[in-house]
């Protein structure tokens, strides 16, 4: 466990140093968030509430999406794949630490930096421009926090799993990119899932993606409350456990046939 936190700390410090990239990213986050908020204003036009989400809620959703891109690593994550292709994985597998935890510790550091430097700052920034929805009361704040952590766990265990495809094929990048694109839509990142027709919702919930993002925002916006909310949180946990289990099985199969050419 001490090793885990050490790795997290090192990763945290490493990601802290990318300051220029963070500032540039913030500018882009603001720009796209404002565009997306404008699209909601235009869609709502005279309606005040659609599917339980008010216009103010939809604008908050646009801000949250931009705030969480970095934290949830929405666009791409090829780090594990790259170590397979460079051969660094050989030494990583020899480390006196579970391979999943080894990456999880590092990703936790990355997620923490992104949450603080991009997540929080983006939300504060948007609060100056728009009238946002904020969680009310201790219970909701705790639920949002728990759901955020679970969302990251779903995201990480899923990213770990799909990166393992690089054990089998030298072309994992294309496959991973394809999966990430699917995740933008089905996680509710492009549009809150409840705005879609029923059949799209049903397909989405067959996949892990809604549990990374959509659940978090529905709890944040107060759309999911009471027993429904508890069920959603439990669902997140269930997905995390299944994804971790799948990851371990696939890893074991993969290591057996992994050929490291080195470089």
């Amino acid at each position: 466990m001490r090793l885990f936190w050490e790795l997290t700390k090192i990763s945290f410090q490493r990601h802290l140093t990318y300051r220029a990239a963070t500032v540039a990213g913030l500018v882009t986050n603001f720009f796209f968030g404002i565009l997306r908020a404008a699209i909601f204003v235009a869609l709502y036009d005279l309606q005040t509430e659609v599917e339980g989400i008010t216009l103010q809620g939809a604008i908050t959703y646009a801000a949250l999406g931009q705030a969480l891109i970095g934290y949830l690593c929405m666009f791409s994550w090829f780090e594990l794949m790259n170590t397979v292709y460079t051969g660094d994985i050989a030494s990583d597998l020899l480390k006196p630490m579970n391979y999943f935890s080894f990456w999880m510790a590092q990703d936790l550091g990355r997620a923490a930096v992104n949450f603080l430097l991009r997540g929080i700052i983006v939300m504060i920034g948007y609060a100056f421009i728009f009238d946002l929805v904020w969680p009310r009361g201790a219970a909701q704040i705790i639920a949002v926090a728990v759901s955020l952590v679970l969302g990251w766990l779903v995201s990480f265990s899923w990213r770990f799993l799909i990166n393992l495809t690089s054990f089998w094929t030298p072309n994992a990048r294309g496959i991973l990119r394809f999966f990430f694109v699917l995740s933008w839509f089905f996680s509710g990142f492009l549009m809150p899932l409840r705005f879609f027709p029923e059949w799209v919702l049903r397909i989405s919930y067959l996949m892990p993606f809604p549990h990374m993002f959509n659940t978090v925002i529905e709890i944040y916006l107060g759309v999911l409350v009471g027993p429904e909310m508890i069920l959603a949180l439990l669902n997140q946990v269930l997905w995390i456990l299944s994804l971790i289990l799948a990851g371990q099985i696939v890893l074991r199969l993969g290591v057996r046939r992994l050929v490291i050419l080195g470089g």
Partner: protein
Amino acid sequence: MLEIYRRLIGVQIRGQMQYRFSFFMELAGTALITLLEYASLALVFARFETLKGWSLGQVAFLFGLAELSFGIMDMFFSGFDPSFFGLQVRRGFFDQLLLRPLNITLQVIGSEFTLRRIGKIVVGIGIFIAALNMNPVDWTPLKILLTSLVVVSQVAFFGGLFIIGATITFWTVESIEVVNIFTYGGSYMISHPMHIFPNFLRYFFTFIIPAIFLNYYPALYILDLPDPFDMPAIAPFLAPVAGLWMLTLALAFWRFGIRHYQSTGT
């Protein structure tokens, strides 16, 4: 010149075809991005009905045109894609190109050709056709000419922005993410009716970066919609001017950049 370009591109395409499975995955990926982005808007129209007065067919018209044009641009100008070009500068590949007795602009544009963008182009065309089905257009020869000019102008315009972004990396080495606001952000904006955006953004993309003339104004004319901003009647026909202006400006900046280029020493 053209023969050399053809050969440079030929090498690129053959190279990409070596990893056929990977190529088709990436092709499917780029097609899927465009399709899902459109779907995320189209599927919620049932709940909202209009986008500030615009029907889905009208929005799809903008969306299809913008996506297919950006796809074509991204395929032909990928050598100038700032994130790709920045890497070339950093690794010293660009210095190698400078040593060859060939036009440098030609070499850069021939240094990468992302065939997988065909995925985006095909979906863009599909959305455009769907738009015409939902919202029939009274075609006149002028409207047909204008539509084809719109595509060419957008390619020139965003190609110019790519060149500017690439040139900036001479000084910054890293590609700067802010450039994405103008390229991907600009393209995202013109995929939607411009009257939905806040004034300061619209003014910026009218008077400083004249993107409003690339898609929105031509669409107003082709779809017979009134102009909410009372621009002069010539506004729908300014797309080629905006495209040419951006590309000329970019090439001038590019030449200036090359003259002052000092390598990174790697």
